[in-house]
């Protein structure tokens, strides 16, 4: 079974540039999460989806960040105008929401973003 796939692995930007991150969850997983993990900190939830619906995006800086999952499978997280404070690893995770005894999150390798 393929794991959670993310691309790109690394991104380096100047402030003000835009960037998109792509995530392909494990097949059949209907719940998808995007986390931001600054260096030396734990993952911080940005947004999560159940199928194509946004369940919680309260921590997503809506003026510059957006996330979509149009067909309930792959997802894209976009930063419109990056700031140095956005420097972090962006993790995508998925889980199977239909089996409440199985709450393990499966993480991708992440995209390491540096904003200069």
């Amino acid at each position: 079974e393929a794991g959670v796939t993310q691309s790109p692995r690394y991104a380096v930007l100047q402030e003000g540039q835009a960037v998109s991150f792509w995530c392909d969850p494990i097949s059949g997983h209907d719940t998808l999460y995007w986390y931001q993990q600054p260096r030396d900190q734990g993952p911080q939830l940005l947004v999560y989806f159940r199928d194509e619906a946004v369940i919680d995006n309260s921590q997503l800086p809506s003026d510059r960040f957006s996330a979509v999952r149009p067909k309930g499978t792959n997802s894209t997280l976009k930063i419109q105008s990056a700031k140095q404070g956005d420097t972090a690893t962006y993790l995508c995770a998925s889980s199977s929401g239909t089996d409440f005894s199985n709450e393990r999150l499966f993480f991708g390798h992440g995209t390491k973003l540096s904003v200069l």
Partner: protein
Amino acid sequence: GQQVKQSSPSLTVQEGGILILNCDYENDMFDYFAWYKKYPDNSPTLLISVRSNVDKREDGRFTVFLNKSGKHFSLHITASQPEDTAVYLCAAGSNTGYQNFYFGKGTSLTVIP
């Protein structure tokens, strides 16, 4: 505010020792509690988890203790080994129809041979 808090950013222990990692949470609706382990340049992976209907779960050298009234849970590691050196992330969430998980900032553990 931060939903899940880990009190110690780092811990060091001698090989063979016992250690306790602590985690506090805010939302008393949380009913699922987990510890994830993260090696450098790798993604977090689930180490052990517990549902709110039990107050303890043991898996080999690792035991989770849950104190719901105190909104606190902990990870006990016995007979620590150098390969336990990693960042340990606690996580808590609610399984009421939709799953959401919140992580602590992590505790960096070093086991000295």
